[in-house]
């Protein structure tokens, strides 16, 4: 695809964002107590699309909500009546600003599971109706390791429009999908066509970014070695501090396990679909008491193996994108990066 590139400066970018917020339903990272989550915004004042701080919460909640009603029912004297829930608040046409690239790639990973076999139409519609506008990161922070995971920093196809700050207040905007291209055609306030220097300057920015990582690992080696590590004693060690709070799964851009539960008041009730986690002791507990993963290390083993082996085996992509969100939010500082490295490097008897 021929990539359309526009250029602008800081003030032009602000004008571009403002025009979008005025014209479209827009979501952007909003700060609260030093942490960022995606909220609906109506002016640029309350939000910060280009913040270098990684968002605490993942953008996945705009596509796969924390808790959603899937069905309502009423019991009447004539029988049970089922009704669909009220309109999906996330289904309309909308724009999301400030999605970190790792987060956007997380959505690509989710697409694999949501689009195999049974197709989740709600998810599909939300994806189709959303334009992702995301800044290319300038610098990796403490727990980032996305470049270690089979990822080419020049491939920005997970975003519809990439925003690249090349320094000195100069900014390039590049449409990376057909959807993004059409969007920029109609929404280009503050932008002008980029000149020939763009390619080179952007490449420089990518290289600078790629050179800023503290963490790195050999993904191919990890993926290969993990396959034989099912019985590794290291799982017990790495999971011993875990308090099973499930925060890692809730903030993870690719964790997608959910539970279905009913709530009822007298004759009326609602069925919910909400986040769940394989770190939860009840996750696989069956009626009658049998639990295939009754202890913590087994649940951590499932988590790590699912992320680095099973999902890849099934869907061809890795289930961890190296964003570091789980590590940042973990109350006991368990890092998935350290976990897999330890597992791979622990000798087995």
């Amino acid at each position, binding site marked *: 695809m021929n990539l359309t590139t526009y250029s602008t400066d800081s003030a032009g970018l602000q004008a571009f964002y403002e025009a979008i917020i005025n014209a479209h339903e827009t979501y952007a990272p909003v700060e609260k107590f030093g942490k960022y989550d995606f909220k609906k915004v109506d002016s640029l004042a309350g939000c910060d699309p280009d913040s270098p701080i990684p968002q605490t919460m993942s953008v996945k909640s705009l596509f796969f909500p924390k808790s959603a009603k899937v069905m309502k029912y009423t019991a009447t004297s004539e029988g*049970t009546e089922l009704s669909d829930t009220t309109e999906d608040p996330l289904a309309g046409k909308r724009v999301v600003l400030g999605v970190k690239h790792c987060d956007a790639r997380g959505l690509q990973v989710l697409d694999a599971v949501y689009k195999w076999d049974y197709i989740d139409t709600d998810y599909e519609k939300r994806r189709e109706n959303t334009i992702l506008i995301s800044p290319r990161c300038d610098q990796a922070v403490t727990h980032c390791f996305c470049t270690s995971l089979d990822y080419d920093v020049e491939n920005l196809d997970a975003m519809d429009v990439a925003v690249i700050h090349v320094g000195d207040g100069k900014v390039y905007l590049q449409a990376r999908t057909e959807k993004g291209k059409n969007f920029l055609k109609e929404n280009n306030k503050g932008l002008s066509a980029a000149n020939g220097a763009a390619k080179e300057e952007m490449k420089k920015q990518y290289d600078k970014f790629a050179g800023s990582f503290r963490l790195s690992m050999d993904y191919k080696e990890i993926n290969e070695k993990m396959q034989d590590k099912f019985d590794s004693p290291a799982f017990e060690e790495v999971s011993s501090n875990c308090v099973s709070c499930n925060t890692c799964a809730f903030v993870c851009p690719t964790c997608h396990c959910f539970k279905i539960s009913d709530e009822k008041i007298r004759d009326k009730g609602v069925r919910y679909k909400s986040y769940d986690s394989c770190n939860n002791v009840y996750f696989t507990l069956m009626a009658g008491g049998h639990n295939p993963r009754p202890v913590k290390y087994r649940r951590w083993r499932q988590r790590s193996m699912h992320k680095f082996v099973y999902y890849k*085996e099934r869907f061809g992509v890795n289930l961890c994108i190296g964003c570091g969100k789980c590590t940042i939010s973990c109350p006991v500082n368990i890092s998935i990066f350290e976990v897999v490295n330890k597992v791979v490097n622990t000798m087995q008897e």
Partner: protein
Amino acid sequence: MICTIDKIIQETPDIRTYRLKFREESLTEQFNWMPGQFVEFSLLGSGECTFCIASSATRKGAFDCSIKRAGIVTADIHRDLDEGDEVGIRGPYGNWFPLKDLKGKNLLFVGGGIGLAPLRSLIQYAIDNRSDYADFTILYGARTSADLCYKEELEEWKNNESLQMILTIDKPEDTWKEHVGVVPKILEEVVKPKVENTKVITCGPPIMIKYTLMSLDKLGFAPKDVITTLEMKMQCGLGKCGRCNIGSTYVCKDGPVFTYEELNTLPDEF
């Protein structure tokens, strides 16, 4: 889809069979399933549970779910549901017994307790297509005679001359005239199945499965000829919610029916 409970049969002190009919009659014709598949059964307000369909689609009009009182939802089902009440059904989901591979073979069913429920769908199917199969043997056991499911049907199967039916209970009882002893023991000492051209279909409590597999191995059965159906915590049935994962396998999509050979390739987590 809403179903009405047509009939409740108390099988054992803690197992009941619910015979279900669709509220909208047009669905009865549309709803088709293969032996071994399962449905998601909702008691609205309590939640959803996974149950196998315990009857065969060759006997249309209604279908059975046999439910053992074990957890929260099943306790609510036993307590709250009466004949005529309505429940929600989604399905059918999952794979089914490999009917093609079974054709022309000797069938040996080995069941224990509630484990007869998933086998029953295939047993009924095979009885209705009896000419497709060679020898037909059912070995079924339970802890006590009161714990045997489908008592009327067991009687029927016993009187059916085209199949051999062997019943056993774990401990002797005064009025019990059939075999006594655990299933694997009876399998080795009484049934003594021939290995050639035979497929074994087994389901039961984990401890029975464990020793049955050892016995079958001793008798010379190849893992690929032993078929079982797995129990796993499931919720969505659609390959999304992630809890039935064993390795990269989704039990709800790739299972619940597996051969023992396939199970050997999976991580030991079931």
